[in-house]
Protein backbone atom coordinates (compact mmCIF):
# COMPACT_ATOMS: atom_id res chain seq x y z
CA UNK A 1 0.00 0.00 0.00
CA UNK A 2 1.32 3.37 -1.03
CA UNK A 3 0.54 6.42 1.09
CA UNK A 4 0.42 9.88 -0.44
CA UNK A 5 -0.13 13.34 0.98
CA UNK A 6 -1.05 15.67 -1.87
CA UNK A 7 -0.86 19.43 -1.42
CA UNK A 8 -4.11 20.26 -3.20
CA UNK A 9 -7.47 18.71 -3.95
CA UNK A 10 -6.62 18.77 -7.60
CA UNK A 11 -3.42 16.87 -7.01
CA UNK A 12 -5.38 14.33 -4.96
CA UNK A 13 -7.85 13.95 -7.80
CA UNK A 14 -4.98 13.43 -10.22
CA UNK A 15 -3.48 10.70 -8.06
CA UNK A 16 -6.79 8.90 -7.75
CA UNK A 17 -7.54 9.12 -11.45
CA UNK A 18 -4.14 7.76 -12.47
CA UNK A 19 -4.17 4.89 -9.99
CA UNK A 20 -4.74 1.50 -11.64
CA UNK A 21 -5.22 -0.41 -8.40
CA UNK A 22 -7.58 0.12 -5.52
CA UNK A 23 -7.31 3.72 -4.32
CA UNK A 24 -8.91 5.25 -1.27
CA UNK A 25 -9.15 8.72 0.11
CA UNK A 26 -8.22 9.20 3.75
CA UNK A 27 -9.58 12.04 5.84
CA UNK A 28 -10.70 11.05 9.36
CA UNK A 29 -10.15 7.39 8.61
CA UNK A 30 -12.86 6.22 11.00
CA UNK A 31 -14.46 4.07 8.30
CA UNK A 32 -11.41 3.30 6.15
CA UNK A 33 -9.28 1.95 8.99
CA UNK A 34 -12.07 -0.31 10.19
CA UNK A 35 -12.38 -1.74 6.69
CA UNK A 36 -8.61 -2.19 6.55
CA UNK A 37 -8.59 -3.99 9.88
CA UNK A 38 -11.41 -6.29 8.90
CA UNK A 39 -9.77 -7.05 5.57
CA UNK A 40 -12.73 -5.60 3.67
CA UNK A 41 -10.44 -3.44 1.52
CA UNK A 42 -6.90 -3.93 0.29
CA UNK A 43 -5.77 -0.54 -0.99
CA UNK A 44 -2.91 -0.10 -3.38
CA UNK A 45 -2.99 3.62 -2.72
CA UNK A 46 -4.26 5.73 0.14
CA UNK A 47 -4.46 9.46 -0.45
CA UNK A 48 -4.40 11.41 2.79
CA UNK A 49 -5.95 14.81 2.16
CA UNK A 50 -5.25 16.27 5.59
CA UNK A 51 -2.07 18.04 4.49
CA UNK A 52 -3.96 20.11 1.94
CA UNK A 53 -3.96 23.75 3.10
CA UNK A 54 -7.25 24.99 4.55
CA UNK A 55 -8.93 21.59 4.14
CA UNK A 56 -9.34 21.41 7.89
CA UNK A 57 -10.99 24.81 8.19
CA UNK A 58 -14.51 26.18 8.36
CA UNK A 59 -14.86 29.37 6.34
CA UNK A 60 -17.71 31.78 6.96
CA UNK A 61 -18.94 34.27 4.37
CA UNK A 62 -22.07 36.24 3.58
CA UNK A 63 -23.32 33.28 1.59
CA UNK A 64 -22.86 30.80 4.35
CA UNK A 65 -20.29 28.23 5.40
CA UNK A 66 -17.67 26.19 3.62
CA UNK A 67 -16.65 23.18 5.68
CA UNK A 68 -13.41 21.60 4.50
CA UNK A 69 -13.29 17.87 3.86
CA UNK A 70 -10.92 17.24 6.78
CA UNK A 71 -12.87 19.23 9.39
CA UNK A 72 -13.57 16.88 12.28
CA UNK A 73 -16.79 16.54 14.21
CA UNK A 74 -15.28 18.13 17.29
CA UNK A 75 -14.20 21.17 15.25
CA UNK A 76 -17.75 21.50 13.96
CA UNK A 77 -19.06 21.23 17.51
CA UNK A 78 -16.79 23.99 18.70
CA UNK A 79 -17.71 26.41 15.87
CA UNK A 80 -20.02 29.01 17.37
CA UNK A 81 -21.28 30.40 14.08
CA UNK A 82 -22.18 27.02 12.72
CA UNK A 83 -23.83 26.01 15.97
CA UNK A 84 -26.02 29.09 15.90
CA UNK A 85 -26.92 28.78 12.20
CA UNK A 86 -27.43 25.04 11.76
CA UNK A 87 -27.73 23.39 15.18
CA UNK A 88 -29.34 20.32 13.63
CA UNK A 89 -26.39 19.71 11.33
CA UNK A 90 -23.97 20.23 14.20
CA UNK A 91 -25.81 17.84 16.51
CA UNK A 92 -25.99 15.25 13.75
CA UNK A 93 -22.27 15.56 13.09
CA UNK A 94 -21.58 15.31 16.81
CA UNK A 95 -23.69 12.18 17.20
CA UNK A 96 -21.26 10.20 15.06
CA UNK A 97 -19.43 7.99 17.53
CA UNK A 98 -17.56 8.84 20.69
CA UNK A 99 -15.36 11.81 21.52
CA UNK A 100 -12.50 9.74 20.09
CA UNK A 101 -14.34 9.34 16.78
CA UNK A 102 -15.30 13.03 16.89
CA UNK A 103 -11.63 13.89 16.94
CA UNK A 104 -11.33 12.45 13.44
CA UNK A 105 -14.64 11.83 11.69
CA UNK A 106 -15.68 14.28 8.97
CA UNK A 107 -18.92 15.25 7.24
CA UNK A 108 -17.45 14.38 3.86
CA UNK A 109 -16.34 10.99 5.11
CA UNK A 110 -19.77 10.32 6.56
CA UNK A 111 -21.25 11.23 3.18
CA UNK A 112 -18.79 9.29 1.00
CA UNK A 113 -18.97 6.15 3.11
CA UNK A 114 -22.53 6.11 1.77
CA UNK A 115 -24.01 4.17 4.62
CA UNK A 116 -27.81 4.36 4.72
CA UNK A 117 -27.52 5.13 8.43
CA UNK A 118 -25.09 8.07 8.25
CA UNK A 119 -26.22 10.60 10.84
CA UNK A 120 -25.05 13.80 9.22
CA UNK A 121 -26.47 13.11 5.77
CA UNK A 122 -30.20 13.65 6.48
CA UNK A 123 -29.31 16.77 8.47
CA UNK A 124 -27.19 18.15 5.64
CA UNK A 125 -29.96 17.39 3.15
CA UNK A 126 -32.59 19.15 5.27
CA UNK A 127 -30.32 22.16 5.60
CA UNK A 128 -29.71 22.36 1.84
CA UNK A 129 -26.02 21.45 1.98
CA UNK A 130 -24.01 20.98 -1.18
CA UNK A 131 -20.87 19.03 -1.95
CA UNK A 132 -18.03 20.74 -3.78
CA UNK A 133 -16.51 18.10 -6.03
CA UNK A 134 -13.07 18.46 -7.56
CA UNK A 135 -12.10 16.23 -10.45
CA UNK A 136 -8.86 15.91 -12.38
CA UNK A 137 -10.32 18.29 -14.95
CA UNK A 138 -13.24 20.19 -13.55
CA UNK A 139 -15.01 21.25 -10.41
CA UNK A 140 -18.74 20.81 -9.80
CA UNK A 141 -21.22 21.38 -7.01
CA UNK A 142 -23.91 18.82 -6.23
CA UNK A 143 -26.70 18.88 -3.63
CA UNK A 144 -25.93 16.40 -0.88
CA UNK A 145 -29.07 14.32 -1.59
CA UNK A 146 -27.69 13.59 -5.07
CA UNK A 147 -24.32 12.32 -3.86
CA UNK A 148 -25.29 8.96 -2.39
CA UNK A 149 -26.84 6.56 -4.88
CA UNK A 150 -27.04 3.38 -2.84
CA UNK A 151 -25.32 1.62 0.02
CA UNK A 152 -21.58 2.23 -0.50
CA UNK A 153 -22.26 3.93 -3.83
CA UNK A 154 -21.80 7.64 -4.68
CA UNK A 155 -22.03 9.84 -7.76
CA UNK A 156 -18.29 10.46 -7.68
CA UNK A 157 -16.52 9.54 -10.88
CA UNK A 158 -13.01 8.13 -11.00
CA UNK A 159 -10.63 10.66 -9.55
CA UNK A 160 -13.33 12.88 -8.11
CA UNK A 161 -12.88 14.21 -4.60
CA UNK A 162 -15.28 16.11 -2.38
CA UNK A 163 -13.27 19.08 -1.23
CA UNK A 164 -15.85 20.73 1.00
CA UNK A 165 -19.46 20.92 2.09
CA UNK A 166 -21.26 24.21 1.79
CA UNK A 167 -24.16 25.28 3.95
CA UNK A 168 -26.20 28.35 3.04
CA UNK A 169 -26.67 31.18 5.46
CA UNK A 170 -30.01 30.33 7.01
CA UNK A 171 -32.92 32.58 6.21
CA UNK A 172 -34.47 34.44 9.09
CA UNK A 173 -36.64 32.35 11.43
CA UNK A 174 -35.20 29.06 10.25
CA UNK A 175 -34.66 26.16 12.59
CA UNK A 176 -33.31 22.69 12.05
CA UNK A 177 -33.03 19.56 14.17
CA UNK A 178 -31.80 16.02 13.89
CA UNK A 179 -32.87 13.12 16.08
CA UNK A 180 -31.90 9.52 15.80
CA UNK A 181 -32.85 6.39 17.63
CA UNK A 182 -30.17 4.11 19.05
CA UNK A 183 -30.55 1.37 21.68
CA UNK A 184 -27.83 2.77 23.92
CA UNK A 185 -27.10 6.43 24.63
CA UNK A 186 -23.88 6.47 22.60
CA UNK A 187 -21.66 4.43 20.30
CA UNK A 188 -24.43 2.93 18.17
CA UNK A 189 -25.32 3.29 14.53
CA UNK A 190 -28.67 4.97 13.93
CA UNK A 191 -31.66 2.65 13.73
CA UNK A 192 -33.71 5.57 12.46
CA UNK A 193 -32.65 9.18 11.87
CA UNK A 194 -34.88 12.17 11.15
CA UNK A 195 -33.76 15.64 10.12
CA UNK A 196 -36.10 18.56 9.75
CA UNK A 197 -35.44 22.10 8.71
CA UNK A 198 -38.22 24.65 8.61
CA UNK A 199 -38.82 28.36 8.18
CA UNK A 200 -41.55 30.29 9.92
CA UNK A 201 -43.51 33.30 8.87
CA UNK A 202 -45.73 34.90 11.49
CA UNK A 203 -45.64 31.74 13.56
CA UNK A 204 -46.69 29.51 10.68
CA UNK A 205 -44.45 27.06 8.88
CA UNK A 206 -43.68 28.59 5.52
CA UNK A 207 -41.11 26.14 4.18
CA UNK A 208 -39.90 22.78 5.38
CA UNK A 209 -37.60 20.00 4.37
CA UNK A 210 -37.66 16.56 5.95
CA UNK A 211 -35.06 13.84 5.41
CA UNK A 212 -34.86 10.36 6.91
CA UNK A 213 -31.87 8.12 7.51
CA UNK A 214 -31.47 4.36 8.09
CA UNK A 215 -34.90 3.55 6.68
CA UNK A 216 -34.00 3.03 3.02
CA UNK A 217 -30.92 2.28 0.87
CA UNK A 218 -30.09 6.00 0.97
CA UNK A 219 -31.26 8.94 3.01
CA UNK A 220 -34.70 9.91 1.73
CA UNK A 221 -36.23 13.33 1.28
CA UNK A 222 -39.94 13.23 2.16
CA UNK A 223 -41.84 15.99 0.36
CA UNK A 224 -45.14 14.72 1.77
CA UNK A 225 -43.81 15.22 5.28
CA UNK A 226 -42.77 18.77 4.44
CA UNK A 227 -46.22 19.45 2.99
CA UNK A 228 -47.79 18.22 6.22
CA UNK A 229 -45.95 20.94 8.10
CA UNK A 230 -46.27 23.86 5.72
CA UNK A 231 -49.10 26.17 6.66
CA UNK A 232 -49.41 24.74 10.15
CA UNK A 233 -48.55 26.01 13.59
CA UNK A 234 -47.37 22.50 14.31
CA UNK A 235 -50.70 21.47 15.74
CA UNK A 236 -51.39 17.86 16.60
CA UNK A 237 -53.07 17.17 13.26
CA UNK A 238 -50.07 18.43 11.32
CA UNK A 239 -47.72 16.37 13.46
CA UNK A 240 -49.82 13.25 12.90
CA UNK A 241 -49.75 13.86 9.17
CA UNK A 242 -46.00 14.39 9.36
CA UNK A 243 -45.53 11.13 11.24
CA UNK A 244 -47.71 9.24 8.79
CA UNK A 245 -45.84 10.67 5.80
CA UNK A 246 -42.49 9.78 7.32
CA UNK A 247 -43.56 6.26 8.18
CA UNK A 248 -44.97 5.84 4.68
CA UNK A 249 -41.70 6.95 3.12
CA UNK A 250 -39.71 4.23 4.88
CA UNK A 251 -38.44 1.32 2.91
CA UNK A 252 -36.25 -0.32 5.54
CA UNK A 253 -34.80 -3.76 6.09
CA UNK A 254 -34.74 -6.14 9.03
CA UNK A 255 -31.24 -6.35 10.40
CA UNK A 256 -29.22 -6.66 13.57
CA UNK A 257 -30.07 -3.07 14.44
CA UNK A 258 -33.83 -3.03 14.02
CA UNK A 259 -36.87 -4.48 12.36
CA UNK A 260 -38.85 -3.09 9.42
CA UNK A 261 -41.88 -2.56 11.62
CA UNK A 262 -39.88 -0.82 14.34
CA UNK A 263 -38.10 1.52 11.97
CA UNK A 264 -41.34 2.56 10.27
CA UNK A 265 -42.99 3.23 13.59
CA UNK A 266 -40.13 5.12 15.19
CA UNK A 267 -39.52 7.27 12.10
CA UNK A 268 -42.92 8.86 12.74
CA UNK A 269 -42.27 9.26 16.46
CA UNK A 270 -38.92 10.97 15.95
CA UNK A 271 -40.27 13.17 13.15
CA UNK A 272 -42.79 14.69 15.54
CA UNK A 273 -40.15 15.29 18.18
CA UNK A 274 -37.64 16.74 15.71
CA UNK A 275 -40.28 19.03 14.20
CA UNK A 276 -41.01 20.50 17.62
CA UNK A 277 -37.35 21.21 18.26
CA UNK A 278 -36.85 22.78 14.83
CA UNK A 279 -40.02 24.83 15.28
CA UNK A 280 -38.80 26.23 18.59
CA UNK A 281 -35.38 26.92 17.19
CA UNK A 282 -37.04 28.93 14.43
CA UNK A 283 -38.65 31.04 17.12
CA UNK A 284 -42.03 29.32 17.11
CA UNK A 285 -44.05 28.94 20.27
CA UNK A 286 -45.58 25.57 20.98
CA UNK B 1 -25.27 -43.18 57.50
CA UNK B 2 -27.68 -42.24 54.75
CA UNK B 3 -26.17 -40.64 51.69
CA UNK B 4 -28.73 -38.91 49.49
CA UNK B 5 -28.19 -38.47 45.78
CA UNK B 6 -29.18 -35.48 43.71
CA UNK B 7 -31.70 -36.57 41.12
CA UNK B 8 -29.13 -35.91 38.41
CA UNK B 9 -27.36 -39.03 39.61
CA UNK B 10 -28.54 -42.56 38.93
CA UNK B 11 -27.07 -45.64 40.55
CA UNK B 12 -29.16 -48.74 39.93
CA UNK B 13 -32.72 -47.78 40.70
CA UNK B 14 -33.46 -44.60 38.81
CA UNK B 15 -32.55 -41.01 39.54
CA UNK B 16 -31.88 -39.73 43.04
CA UNK B 17 -32.73 -41.74 46.12
CA UNK B 18 -30.40 -42.59 48.93
CA UNK B 19 -28.06 -45.35 50.00
CA UNK B 20 -26.71 -46.46 53.33
CA UNK B 21 -22.94 -46.57 53.84
CA UNK B 22 -20.44 -46.79 56.66
CA UNK B 23 -18.28 -43.72 56.36
CA UNK B 24 -16.21 -41.43 58.49
CA UNK B 25 -14.88 -39.30 55.65
CA UNK B 26 -15.89 -38.35 52.14
CA UNK B 27 -13.30 -40.78 50.82
CA UNK B 28 -15.07 -43.63 52.65
CA UNK B 29 -18.29 -42.79 50.81
CA UNK B 30 -16.58 -42.65 47.45
CA UNK B 31 -14.75 -45.93 47.97
CA UNK B 32 -17.79 -47.80 49.15
CA UNK B 33 -20.01 -46.48 46.33
CA UNK B 34 -17.35 -47.29 43.75
CA UNK B 35 -17.17 -50.84 45.07
CA UNK B 36 -20.92 -51.25 45.17
CA UNK B 37 -21.99 -49.59 41.91
CA UNK B 38 -20.14 -50.26 38.66
CA UNK B 39 -21.29 -46.96 37.10
CA UNK B 40 -20.29 -44.74 40.03
CA UNK B 41 -16.84 -44.23 38.55
CA UNK B 42 -18.51 -42.58 35.55
CA UNK B 43 -20.41 -40.22 37.82
CA UNK B 44 -17.15 -39.32 39.52
CA UNK B 45 -15.63 -38.51 36.15
CA UNK B 46 -18.52 -36.16 35.40
CA UNK B 47 -17.93 -34.47 38.73
CA UNK B 48 -19.37 -35.10 42.15
CA UNK B 49 -19.39 -32.75 45.12
CA UNK B 50 -20.53 -33.60 48.61
CA UNK B 51 -22.79 -31.47 50.72
CA UNK B 52 -22.36 -32.07 54.45
CA UNK B 53 -24.98 -30.29 56.50
CA UNK B 54 -25.50 -27.84 53.68
CA UNK B 55 -21.83 -27.00 53.09
CA UNK B 56 -20.47 -28.08 49.76
CA UNK B 57 -17.13 -29.89 49.50
CA UNK B 58 -15.70 -30.42 46.05
CA UNK B 59 -12.23 -31.74 46.52
CA UNK B 60 -11.19 -32.55 50.03
CA UNK B 61 -11.99 -36.22 50.48
CA UNK B 62 -10.33 -36.28 53.89
CA UNK B 63 -13.19 -34.19 55.24
CA UNK B 64 -14.61 -35.97 58.31
CA UNK B 65 -18.36 -36.47 58.43
CA UNK B 66 -20.20 -36.11 61.74
CA UNK B 67 -22.30 -39.18 62.63
CA UNK B 68 -25.70 -37.53 62.30
CA UNK B 69 -24.82 -35.33 59.33
CA UNK B 70 -27.04 -34.78 56.32
CA UNK B 71 -24.95 -35.98 53.38
CA UNK B 72 -25.87 -35.23 49.78
CA UNK B 73 -24.05 -36.02 46.58
CA UNK B 74 -24.58 -33.21 44.10
CA UNK B 75 -23.05 -32.37 40.74
CA UNK B 76 -19.71 -30.62 40.87
CA UNK B 77 -20.20 -27.12 39.57
CA UNK B 78 -17.92 -24.66 37.86
CA UNK B 79 -18.01 -20.93 38.15
CA UNK B 80 -17.22 -17.87 36.11
Amino acid at each position, binding site marked *: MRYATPASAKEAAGMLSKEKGAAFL*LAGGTDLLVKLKMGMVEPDLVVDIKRIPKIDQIQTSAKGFVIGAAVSGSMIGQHKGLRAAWPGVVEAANLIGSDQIQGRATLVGNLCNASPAADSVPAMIAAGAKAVIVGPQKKRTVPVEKVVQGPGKTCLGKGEVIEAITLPKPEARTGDAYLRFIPRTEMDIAVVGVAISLKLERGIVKKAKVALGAVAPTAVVVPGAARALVGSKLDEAALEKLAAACSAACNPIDDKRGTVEYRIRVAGVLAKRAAKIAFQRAGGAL | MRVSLSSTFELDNGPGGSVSVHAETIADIMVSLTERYPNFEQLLDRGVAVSINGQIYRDDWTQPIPADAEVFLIPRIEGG
Partner: protein
Amino acid sequence: MSNATLVSTTVNGDPVQFACPTDESLMTALRNRVGLTGVKEGCGTGDCGACSVTLDGSLVCACLVLGVEAEGREVTTVEGLSQDGELHVLQQKFIDHAALQCGICTPGFLVAAKTLLDRNPNPDETEIRYALAGNLCRCTGYDKIVRAVQDAAKDMRKANKKRR
Protein backbone atom coordinates in the same frame (compact mmCIF):
# COMPACT_ATOMS: atom_id res chain seq x y z
CA MET C 1 8.24 -5.53 6.36
CA SER C 2 7.03 -4.46 2.95
CA ASN C 3 6.45 -0.80 2.13
CA ALA C 4 7.89 0.44 5.39
CA THR C 5 7.96 4.17 5.83
CA LEU C 6 10.12 6.11 8.24
CA VAL C 7 8.02 8.29 10.51
CA SER C 8 9.41 11.16 12.58
CA THR C 9 7.10 12.27 15.31
CA THR C 10 6.90 13.45 18.90
CA VAL C 11 5.63 11.06 21.51
CA ASN C 12 5.05 12.24 25.07
CA GLY C 13 7.32 15.18 24.37
CA ASP C 14 10.22 13.13 23.05
CA PRO C 15 11.35 13.00 19.43
CA VAL C 16 10.72 9.51 18.11
CA GLN C 17 11.42 7.78 14.83
CA PHE C 18 10.00 4.49 13.72
CA ALA C 19 9.60 2.59 10.48
CA CYS C 20 6.27 0.92 9.87
CA PRO C 21 4.29 -0.50 6.98
CA THR C 22 1.98 2.13 5.53
CA ASP C 23 -1.12 0.16 6.43
CA GLU C 24 -0.15 -0.29 10.07
CA SER C 25 -2.23 1.55 12.67
CA LEU C 26 -0.71 4.07 15.03
CA MET C 27 -1.83 1.79 17.85
CA THR C 28 0.26 -1.09 16.57
CA ALA C 29 3.20 1.18 15.78
CA LEU C 30 3.14 2.69 19.28
CA ARG C 31 2.88 -0.75 20.89
CA ASN C 32 5.27 -2.75 18.78
CA ARG C 33 7.76 -0.18 17.50
CA VAL C 34 7.84 2.53 20.17
CA GLY C 35 7.30 0.09 23.05
CA LEU C 36 4.37 1.94 24.57
CA THR C 37 2.17 -1.01 25.50
CA GLY C 38 0.04 1.22 27.71
CA VAL C 39 -1.85 1.78 24.46
CA LYS C 40 -4.20 -1.20 24.67
CA GLU C 41 -5.99 -3.05 21.90
CA GLY C 42 -9.51 -4.05 22.85
CA CYS C 43 -11.13 -4.10 19.44
CA GLY C 44 -9.04 -2.42 16.76
CA THR C 45 -12.15 -0.80 15.30
CA GLY C 46 -12.69 2.31 17.44
CA ASP C 47 -15.44 0.82 19.55
CA CYS C 48 -13.77 0.39 22.95
CA GLY C 49 -11.40 3.34 23.45
CA ALA C 50 -8.67 1.27 25.13
CA CYS C 51 -6.12 2.69 22.68
CA SER C 52 -7.09 6.33 23.29
CA VAL C 53 -4.25 8.79 22.73
CA THR C 54 -4.17 12.42 21.78
CA LEU C 55 -2.93 13.52 18.37
CA ASP C 56 -2.01 17.20 18.33
CA GLY C 57 -4.12 17.51 21.46
CA SER C 58 -7.25 15.94 20.07
CA LEU C 59 -8.55 12.68 21.48
CA VAL C 60 -8.46 9.77 19.03
CA CYS C 61 -8.48 6.01 18.95
CA ALA C 62 -4.95 5.11 17.89
CA CYS C 63 -6.37 2.07 16.09
CA LEU C 64 -8.17 4.40 13.68
CA VAL C 65 -5.05 6.37 12.77
CA LEU C 66 -2.33 5.13 10.45
CA GLY C 67 1.14 5.12 11.92
CA VAL C 68 2.37 7.18 8.96
CA GLU C 69 -0.17 9.90 9.77
CA ALA C 70 1.82 10.71 12.91
CA GLU C 71 4.58 12.25 10.81
CA GLY C 72 5.38 15.65 12.30
CA ARG C 73 2.59 15.44 14.85
CA GLU C 74 2.48 15.25 18.61
CA VAL C 75 1.22 12.10 20.25
CA THR C 76 0.46 11.71 23.94
CA THR C 77 -0.22 8.34 25.53
CA VAL C 78 -0.96 7.26 29.08
CA GLU C 79 2.79 6.92 29.59
CA GLY C 80 3.02 10.69 29.17
CA LEU C 81 0.50 11.60 31.87
CA SER C 82 2.73 11.43 34.90
CA GLN C 83 5.39 14.10 35.03
CA ASP C 84 8.62 14.24 37.02
CA GLY C 85 7.91 10.98 38.78
CA GLU C 86 4.57 12.20 40.13
CA LEU C 87 1.30 10.64 39.17
CA HIS C 88 -1.23 12.88 37.47
CA VAL C 89 -4.14 13.71 39.79
CA LEU C 90 -6.40 11.51 37.67
CA GLN C 91 -4.04 8.55 38.00
CA GLN C 92 -3.91 8.94 41.78
CA LYS C 93 -7.69 9.31 42.04
CA PHE C 94 -8.26 6.20 39.94
CA ILE C 95 -6.17 4.26 42.45
CA ASP C 96 -7.74 5.94 45.49
CA HIS C 97 -11.31 5.33 44.30
CA ALA C 98 -10.67 1.76 43.18
CA ALA C 99 -11.77 2.92 39.75
CA LEU C 100 -10.04 -0.01 38.11
CA GLN C 101 -10.45 -3.71 38.53
CA CYS C 102 -8.70 -5.51 35.70
CA GLY C 103 -7.20 -2.22 34.53
CA ILE C 104 -7.07 -2.93 30.79
CA CYS C 105 -9.38 -0.02 29.99
CA THR C 106 -7.71 2.32 32.50
CA PRO C 107 -5.09 3.94 30.21
CA GLY C 108 -7.79 4.85 27.69
CA PHE C 109 -10.07 6.23 30.38
CA LEU C 110 -7.25 8.34 31.81
CA VAL C 111 -6.35 9.86 28.45
CA ALA C 112 -10.02 10.55 27.68
CA ALA C 113 -10.69 11.99 31.14
CA LYS C 114 -7.66 14.26 30.94
CA THR C 115 -8.80 15.54 27.55
CA LEU C 116 -12.22 16.25 29.04
CA LEU C 117 -10.86 18.12 32.06
CA ASP C 118 -8.44 20.13 29.92
CA ARG C 119 -11.41 21.33 27.91
CA ASN C 120 -13.98 21.52 30.70
CA PRO C 121 -12.56 21.79 34.23
CA ASN C 122 -15.98 21.52 35.86
CA PRO C 123 -18.05 18.91 34.07
CA ASP C 124 -21.26 17.63 35.63
CA GLU C 125 -21.97 13.92 35.97
CA THR C 126 -23.78 13.72 32.63
CA GLU C 127 -20.99 15.49 30.81
CA ILE C 128 -18.45 13.11 32.32
CA ARG C 129 -20.53 10.09 31.37
CA TYR C 130 -20.94 11.20 27.75
CA ALA C 131 -17.31 12.24 27.43
CA LEU C 132 -16.28 8.76 28.57
CA ALA C 133 -18.90 6.89 26.54
CA GLY C 134 -16.26 5.95 23.98
CA ASN C 135 -14.34 3.98 26.59
CA LEU C 136 -15.75 0.59 27.48
CA CYS C 137 -15.22 -0.87 30.92
CA ARG C 138 -16.60 -4.30 31.67
CA CYS C 139 -15.56 -4.59 35.34
CA THR C 140 -16.66 -1.55 37.28
CA GLY C 141 -20.06 -0.47 36.03
CA TYR C 142 -18.35 2.95 35.64
CA ASP C 143 -19.49 4.06 39.11
CA LYS C 144 -16.07 4.47 40.68
CA ILE C 145 -14.57 5.79 37.44
CA VAL C 146 -17.03 8.68 37.33
CA ARG C 147 -16.43 9.39 41.02
CA ALA C 148 -12.66 9.40 40.48
CA VAL C 149 -12.99 11.88 37.62
CA GLN C 150 -15.29 14.10 39.68
CA ASP C 151 -12.83 14.07 42.56
CA ALA C 152 -9.84 14.73 40.30
CA ALA C 153 -11.65 17.65 38.67
CA LYS C 154 -12.30 19.13 42.10
CA ASP C 155 -8.64 18.85 43.10
CA MET C 156 -7.45 20.22 39.77
CA ARG C 157 -9.75 23.23 40.08
CA LYS C 158 -8.43 23.89 43.58
CA ALA C 159 -4.83 23.64 42.38
CA ASN C 160 -5.54 26.00 39.48
CA LYS C 161 -7.09 28.55 41.82
CA LYS C 162 -4.03 28.45 44.04
CA ARG C 163 -1.73 28.93 41.06
CA ARG C 164 -3.61 32.07 40.09
